[in-house]
Structures are given as C-alpha cells and as structure tokens.
C-alpha cells in the first residue's frame, strides 16, 4: 500500500510541476513584451506582407511562446505569427 502511494506521488511530483510552470512563466517575464510592442510588430508585418499577398488582417494572430532549442532542449522564447492568406497578388517579379 505504502509502495503504491510513494510511486504515485513520484510520477506527479509537485516539484516538477512547479519547475515547468516556473520556466514557462519566466520565458514570458524575461522577454517582457507589452501588448503595444506586439501591436507594433503586427503593424509592420502587415505592411511588408501586404506587398506580396492579400492577408486576412482581422484573423492575424501574433504571440510570444516558448520552444525547445534543438542543441540542449532548453526552453527559449519564440515569436509565433499566424497569418491567413486570402489571395496571392499577381506575380511580382
């Protein structure tokens, strides 16, 4: 019985939960992005991309997340932009 309990506790060790949550929250804290900063990037992205394709500005999504770095599996901040394209503009060569 006791054996059971200790193994169950180990698999859901609250320390690891804390560590993961902490790492995630620190990724956001450290990059320290304000919503105005993100809005500025969004505006510039729209400007650049609009020269080449027609995009759905209302559904454009941009956010900071974290991703695992290939070399050492450490979490690093990443900027993710989801830009729905309505139509490609005529061949701009």
């Amino acid at each position, binding site marked *: 019985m006791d054996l059971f309990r200790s193994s169950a*506790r*180990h698999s859901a*060790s*609250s*320390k*690891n939960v*804390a*560590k993961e*949550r*902490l*790492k995630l*929250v*620190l990724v956001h*804290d*450290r990059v320290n992005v304000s919503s105005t900063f993100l809005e500025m990037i969004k505006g510039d992205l729209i400007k650049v991309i609009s020269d080449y394709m027609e995009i759905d500005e209302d559904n454009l999504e941009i956010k900071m997340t974290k991703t695992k770095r290939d070399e050492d599996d450490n979490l690093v901040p990443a900027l993710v932009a989801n830009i729905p394209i309505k139509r490609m503009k005529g061949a701009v060569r």
Partner: protein
Amino acid sequence: MGEVIVITSGKGGVGKTTATANIGTALAVNGKKVVLVDADIGLRNLDVVMGLENRIVYDVVDVVEGVCRLRQALIKDKRYPDLFLLPAAQTKDKSAVSPAQMQELCERLKKEFDFVLIDCPAGIEQGFKNAIAGADRAIVVTTPEISAVRDADRIIGLLEASELGSPKLVVNRVRIDMVKKGDMMNTEDMIDILAIDLLGVVPDDESIVVSTNRGEPAVGDNRSLAGKAFNNIALRILGHDVPFLDLEVDEGFITKLLKLISKR
C-alpha cells in the same frame, strides 16, 4: 575601505531581514566591523529582529536630513564586538530618501566599516532603488516557492541592468523532507532556472522563530542549523571555501545505494 552589500528578494516574507541580521552578526563574530542598515523606511523590522528596538533615538532619515550626526544614529550592539545598526524611520515613507542620498550615506559608512549590509524592502519601486544605489554587490534571497523564485528572477534582471553585476543566491527555508518527496524544488533546480552563483542554503528551522521572538540572531545559537548555515554564508563572503551544509542528515541505506547506482 569597506564593502556595501544589499540583501534583496523582490517578494516579501522570504527572510531578507533575518538573513541581514544573521549574516551581519556572523561577520561581526568573525572579527569584522559591521553596520546593518534598514532601508525599509515606514516598515522597519531589522531593529526588532536584532532586539535593539528600545534603543532607537535617531534613524536613517534623520541622518540624511542632517537632524543628527551619523554617529548619533548608529546603535551599538553590546553583545558583539563591532556590530552596529542604523534603523529606518517608521513614520516616513520611501520618498523621504533619494538614491543619491543613500549613495552618499554608503560612501560615508564604507570609510568606517568593513561591511555595510543593507536590508532592502520588498518590491521593485523607490525603496528598492534606494537600497541598491550605494551597493557594491548584491545577495538575492529566495525560498523554494514558485512565486519567490519568479520574483527573484525579476530582481536579478534589474540588478544586472544596473551596474551591480551578477548577484549571489541564498536559498532560504528549505525543507529537506519535502525535497526528498519531490514536493519542493531543490537548490539545483533553482540555480538551473535563475542561472546565478549559489552563496548558501538555509534550512527551514524552528530556531529562527525562537531567536526572532527573543531578538537574538540565530548565529549565536550553536544548536541552530539555520544559524550555522548563515555563519557559513558569512565565511564565504570573507573568501573562505566552506562546503554547503549536508541537509540530508538521515539519509537511509537504500537512498545511498540508489544514488550510487544512478551515478554509474
């Protein structure tokens, strides 16, 4: 010329004042001339933790405003050879002192003392800016809690952005029974996340409550494990190479065996 060390944390209630009192007392016990400065204007507590609350006449605000001379505001702790306290004002607020005034005060204190320890208030506003203004280096205190470590990370960022360089970490209130069960972050976890050097690990210890009740720093109590940990921190500040306390006192045979196997 002495050295000014600020003890800070971001979050309140992690043990900054206790750490300041104990590290300062330990430095004095080791033959250094030490002054403890309470920078928590409006919420002073270093005086009660040190048991010197009944001897306050002037405070740090009186000194910067020129109401009294520096020497008049310094309270000598008669229990130790060269230990002094410069108390905070209780009826004013953080804006009563400016960073420039704190810097000047630290310069004056450095001339007379080997160590000037500044007990920083919680937060990242004016009080924090005042406390770090005259410091040469910083100690960040945290506990193994997600909220305390998060705030420590923020403080480390702010300290590194100032000219203070990389601070050293003290992990306070470690409960080894919970660490063993996997229910508390261990020191390695925190060093890994915060990426700074470790200065000391202090166990959660009832003797701290007792010593605070009495107004006697725990470093004076030989039986206090936390007191011993604080003394080791003082020795490391003095440049001694002291191994970290082995908190796993009752490590059983099986644990040892498992450790041995996992090392292979």
